[in-house]
């Protein structure tokens, strides 16, 4: 079992949410399953919760929702679900689709709010 998961780690990972800009759908301390398989085959879609490097500080990884896609420039606008408490594409601009590799798919913690993360949720 461990061996299988080790192999899978390349496209499957777990992350912990920090900050409140995705409230109420994601709260600080939420643990999520993220995967990088989907975006090898296709680009992110509207409403999906994605991870992206902060354009102003690439060492920091952001979690935001895809709010708009510009096919012409191949860029996505990212937004927090709580716009009043979010620093996002409104400040740092659109993010190239090619730089979005990870998608959040499932919350496993806390158990009371565990479940699949639906696009546009």
């Amino acid at each position: 079992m461990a061996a299988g998961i080790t192999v899978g780690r390349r496209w499957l990972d777990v992350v912990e949410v920090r900050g409140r800009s995705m409230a109420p759908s994601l709260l600080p301390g939420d643990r999520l399953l993220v995967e990088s398989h989907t975006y090898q085959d296709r680009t992110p879609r509207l409403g999906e919760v994605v991870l992206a490097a902060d354009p102003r500080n690439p060492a920091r990884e952001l979690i935001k929702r895809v709010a708009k896609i510009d096919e012409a420039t191949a860029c996505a606008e990212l937004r927090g679900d709580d716009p009043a408490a979010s620093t996002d594409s409104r400040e740092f601009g659109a993010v190239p689709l090619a730089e979005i590799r990870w998608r959040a798919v499932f919350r496993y913690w806390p158990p009371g709010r565990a479940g699949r993360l639906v696009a546009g949720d």
Partner: protein
Amino acid sequence: MLTIRALIHPSRHVHAHCDIPCGIYDPEQARIEAESCLRIIEKHDASDDKLFRARCIHVKEERAELVKHHLDVLWHDYFKPEHLEKYPDLHETFWKASKQASTVKQSLDAAAARELLAMIDTIDGMWKATGGPEKTRVSGRPS
């Protein structure tokens, strides 16, 4: 490897990021400095002491600068584009208030200082109407 330990405490943190980690805003900060300006101008006018009057001018200029700073933080960090939809004159309001703070910094006009207070109160109204007190202050202070 995804161990139980990694599941419980993921080492990878993703940021539902907000630029200001504290997220605390309140136009009261600007108002208190503006009130200082008004009171200092009144004290200046009531005094014959040259040295005291010089100190008044110096301190009032510092306070007026702080008003500008606090207004800037509110303007740039608290207010967001969706607030602009609700208050299309938001930029104009801040621009004028900031200029008024400059006027107070440069002058000894008590009326100008009162006008600045009124402008800050307008901004305070916007902050309150956009949920500022609930969202950007910590509750629980004894009343």
